[in-house]
């Protein structure tokens, strides 16, 4: 009996020893699983926002589904390495990509330099847009978050972060280049997809998107209850076959209030691109905003979001126009998991130019009337 106890102890020691040495590497992760459904008065099938939701069925296989694993290791007090792999769902099946992979050199407590591939802090929640658990919505309002097709930057990111007298200051200055894949609606941007080379319906066209000479900043100041943010990003773009060496910029301001049980998020962004024949078709100027108001009742957070995307500084026929109202409910079912429901009514705006571009919004076809998108998500962190 005693021998048995001893051998069990020995086994336990053997099992725990490697765990101690593994403490140098920290694993964490996030997961979102979603289902979506769209309904419209159109007679034929129509999809919303590059097949994010379909009209004929509850779709459990959209690109909202993803799981990410982050591996972090501190090599010394000043040097650390972070890698995150994300498997993202969608029409072409789960694809694993390194969402970010960077080394950090921490000069001192306040200043650090990230080198490698990192999430671009283009908008208020864009650097954690994949971590559904971190925000109230089923997804960041696409009116604003669709305006920049780039998610990651390969380059350098200088980060200053400090808290003085309960006020938090954050400044990031970054630059670099990169290749990104994005989707475009070929009905609105003809030329990206000659019918013979389209892998899917011509409305959902993935294409390579090259950015270079990119630079930007993101600055925020806030207390525990209120945070204000401003940012700007400028880049040169190549998007074969039609966009070559043109440029675009993204500017935004945002506000988060998280005070007692009240939650308020709002952002206004401007996409400003070269006013050339190709850019004004593929990536026209756009202005967009949203405002979300929520109230926490213990583990329930009902919210309402108003959002809008409209033509920008240079008004062109191809600009997207829609406004929406969404009613949502976040339910924290556990310390680290939430289920969210959202019903969103979308009103595609009438183009002042009329013609074939009217009433599209972020849909892949023209709507005869308003459309609804329903989303249910399960979000967790681990």
């Amino acid at each position, binding site marked *: 009996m005693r021998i048995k106890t001893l051998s069990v102890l020995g086994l336990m020691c053997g099992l725990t020893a490697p765990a101690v040495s593994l403490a140098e590497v920290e694993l964490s992760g996030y997961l979102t699983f979603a289902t979506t459904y769209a309904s419209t008065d159109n007679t034929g099938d129509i999809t919303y926002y590059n097949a994010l939701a379909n009209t004929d069925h509850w779709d459990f296989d959209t690109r909202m589904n993803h799981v990410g694993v*982050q591996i972090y290791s501190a090599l010394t007090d000043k040097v650390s390495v972070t890698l*995150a792999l994300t498997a993202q769902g969608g029409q072409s099946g789960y694809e694993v990509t390194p969402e970010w992979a960077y080394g950090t050199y921490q000069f001192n*407590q306040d200043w*650090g330099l990230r080198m490698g591939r990192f999430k671009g802090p283009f908008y208020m929640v864009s650097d*954690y847009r994949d971590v559904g*658990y971190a925000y109230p919505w089923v997804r960041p309002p696409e009116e604003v978050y669709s305006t920049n097709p780039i998610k990651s930057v390969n380059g350098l990111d200088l980060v200053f*972060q400090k808290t003085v007298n309960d006020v938090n200051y954050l400044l990031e200055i970054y630059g670099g280049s990169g290749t990104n894949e994005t989707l475009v609606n070929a009905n609105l941007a003809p030329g990206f997809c000659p019918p013979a080379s389209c892998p899917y319906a011509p409305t959902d066209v993935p294409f390579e998107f090259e950015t270079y000479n990119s630079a930007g900043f993101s600055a925020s100041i806030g207390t525990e209850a209120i945070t204000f943010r401003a940012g700007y990003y400028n880049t040169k773009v190549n998007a074969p076959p039609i966009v070559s060496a043109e440029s675009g910029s993204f500017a935004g301001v945002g506000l988060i209030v998280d005070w007692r049980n009240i939650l308020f998020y709002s952002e206004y962004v401007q996409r400003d691109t070269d006013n050339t024949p190709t850019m004004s078709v593929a990536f026209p100027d756009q202005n967009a905003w949203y405002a979300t108001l929520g109230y926490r009742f213990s583990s329930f957070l009902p919210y309402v979001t108003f959002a809008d995307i409209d033509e920008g500084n240079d008004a062109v026929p191809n600009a997207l126009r829609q406004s929406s109202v969404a009613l949502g409910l976040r339910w924290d079912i556990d*310390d680290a998991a939430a289920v969210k429901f959202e019903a969103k009514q979308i009103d595609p705006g009438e183009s002042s130019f009329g013609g074939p571009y009217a009433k599209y919004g972020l849909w892949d076809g023209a709507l005869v009337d308003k459309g609804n998108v329903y989303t249910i998500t399960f979000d967790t962190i681990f």
Partner: protein
Amino acid sequence: MRTMKTRIAGTLLGSALFLLTSIAAAEVAIITHPGTQEIGLSKDKVADVYLGKIKAFSDGTPTKPVDQSKDSPLRAKFYKAILGKTETEMNRYWSKRKYTGKGKPPVVVLSDDAVKELVANTPGAIGYIDGKSLDKSVKVILIIR
């Protein structure tokens, strides 16, 4: 058989209640490395260390907060008393930071002894343990009753 079951259930309930009251009555001691010279380490300052807002003491020593496991009642009591936050609220806080390189939650160790060992041997470390586990290897900052 029925009485037997009832009796077992009764005993289990009794010991569970006993366990709960003894946990509820436990004191949580907030401790630091014996070399920590920081003056005025108040509740608010400890909270800021655990939120990653105070990254170094005034003499320049980097702060190293240490957590107990998520199942530990000491952890829930510490976060409620010092930060006024639940586990869910802390998860929400870190989820916006730890995947974006904007912060790192405290390291987690699994027992009072492990916390003491780490804190005693790491300048700048802060941890919390059951008051009964206190000894001279560490310095006490605050006691939560």
